[in-house]
């Protein structure tokens, strides 16, 4: 019963989240669909603006080297705050609430009175979070492919590169989920893991943007998890395997910490 994961617990948690997951997947698919549409509709007109120097150079750096190609449009859409917000909803939101939220509500009591070890509980939530990350990324990818097909521009993007981007994104989300879940397993109240998750998100995003706009702050970028998700490079076939390794390492370290910390904690009666 107390194996690596608990299937009844996985089913219970999935059932509670599946409608929300479906809504987020639909939103990401729509968002992914829009990028090729925007490129096919406005891309060539916008590209002509580049020649006029009307767009400041720092913004061009932020957008990437080739913002008005299909690859550029997809890459831009992939790391747009709306897309990032949708992608991290479960890794950070559910990750924070999975243990500390149940603990705060008191509902963890009856779960842990069952023959489930705390490590199993932690692993089950992590597996679900990674599974949801895979679904959301695939939804965004499906939307992008559908949009490209609808507007006949599939030849301008490499399917293999899209899959690498999917793996890269799933690894980023897995790292965020593992960090937030480890925080969730370390506190009795929801506020702390939510704070850590949001701080990680906002600070990481700001550091990455800051380093892009201001070369003097570029040294800060490696401290941001978003630095290791570079869609433009990946879609251009120049992805760095080191990015994947860093994200996998962060996920592994956070998971190891959570699995070590959670079983050692005293869980006093909820107040």
């Amino acid at each position, binding site marked *: 019963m107390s194996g690596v994961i608990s299937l009844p617990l996985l089913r219970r948690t999935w059932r509670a989240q599946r409608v929300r997951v479906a809504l987020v997947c639909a939103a990401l698919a729509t968002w992914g669909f829009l990028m090729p549409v925007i490129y096919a509709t406005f891309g060539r007109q916008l590209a002509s603006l580049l020649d006029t120097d009307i767009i400041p150079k720092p913004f061009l750096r932020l957008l990437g080297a080739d913002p008005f190609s299909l690859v550029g449009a997809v890459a831009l859409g992939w790391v747009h705050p709306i897309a990032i917000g949708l992608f991290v909803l479960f890794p950070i939101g559910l990750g924070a609430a999975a243990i500390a939220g149940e603990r705060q509500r008191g509902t963890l009591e009856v779960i842990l*009175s069952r023959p489930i070890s705390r490590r199993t509980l932690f692993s089950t939530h992590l597996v679900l979070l990674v599974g949801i990350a895979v679904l959301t990324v695939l939804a965004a990818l499906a939307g992008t492919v559908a949009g490209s097909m609808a507007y006949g521009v599939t030849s301008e993007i490499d399917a293999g590169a899209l899959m690498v981007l999917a793996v890269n994104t799933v690894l980023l989300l897995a790292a965020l989920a593992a960090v937030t879940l480890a925080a969730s397993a370390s506190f009795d109240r929801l506020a702390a893991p939510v704070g850590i998750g949001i701080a990680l998100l906002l600070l990481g995003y700001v550091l990455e943007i800051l380093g892009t706009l201001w070369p003097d702050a570029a040294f800060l970028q490696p401290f941001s998890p978003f630095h290791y998700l570079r869609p433009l490079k990946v879609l251009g076939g120049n992805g760095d395997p080191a990015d994947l390794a860093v994200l996998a390492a962060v996920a592994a370290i956070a998971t190891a910490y959570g699995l070590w910390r959670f079983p050692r904690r005293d*869980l006093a009666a909820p107040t």
Partner: protein
Amino acid sequence: MEGLAKHYGRVHALEDVTLDVRQGEIFGFLGPNGAGKSTLIRLLLGYLHPTAGRGSVLGLDIVRDSVAIRRRSGYLPGGIALDDGLSGLRLLDDLAALSGRPPVRRAAICEKLELTDRVLRRPIRDYSRGMRQKLGIVQALQHDPELAILDEPSEGLDPLMQRAFYEVLEGVRAAGRTVFFSSHVLSEVERVCDRVAIVRAGRLVALEDVAVIRAQRRRRVELRFDGPAPDLAGVEGAEDVRIDGGSLVCTLAGSPRAFLAAIAGSAVTDLVIEPARLEDAFLELYAGEEADEAAEATAAADGTGARS
């Protein structure tokens, strides 16, 4: 468990608790709020880690074999919180699945506690406090655990449902299961438990059969008589004798046999011996402990180090 202790820094939530619970009994763990009842239960189920001592449940070590213990037990947490978004039935099904054992006793317990199918299909958010508590009892017992650990189980139940719950407990005992029952409601412990442990400020102050504790307590006796007052001097257990005209009042500890023999020759017109209630024994124990502590504090303040 032997010498089980739980400290939070300087706070000693539980100190040197040694007790055993026999298979097939209903064991009451009694004490006021904050005495350490829930702490002990949480140690037994692996929510807390002991600071000192060791314990075993169903022959399994509470630290090493926590999952195996929970596989064979059922637990009702004090002030249970349930997932409001689910129906009662969904919650029970989920928890049965997590237990890995079929809910063989669910129907019988639900019937006793008047949890109909219609009620169970409603969302838990619509349940009253008492209904939630009933659902908590069902989830703890539905899979017929070898050991049921119930923390303040009758909290929130109306008197009729309390009676129904006691009948459920009788059924559990009849099936040879063991119940560890924490409460601060003395009357229910007295009613359903075979043995009782009394805890105060984290320390065990009594561990006895309920009947023995009752027998040990002082009962108030009122006697009316004609003619000369009976002579109770030297009668075993009789103390605080006060005679006022044709009325005698005293306290009586232990067996009333010697007392009854002493008054046999008197013209007794009325006799009232109050029933021995656990509540009084409990209050006497607490009063005794408090007196001991006060004496210790006084001795310490005097610098004598003497103990009463």
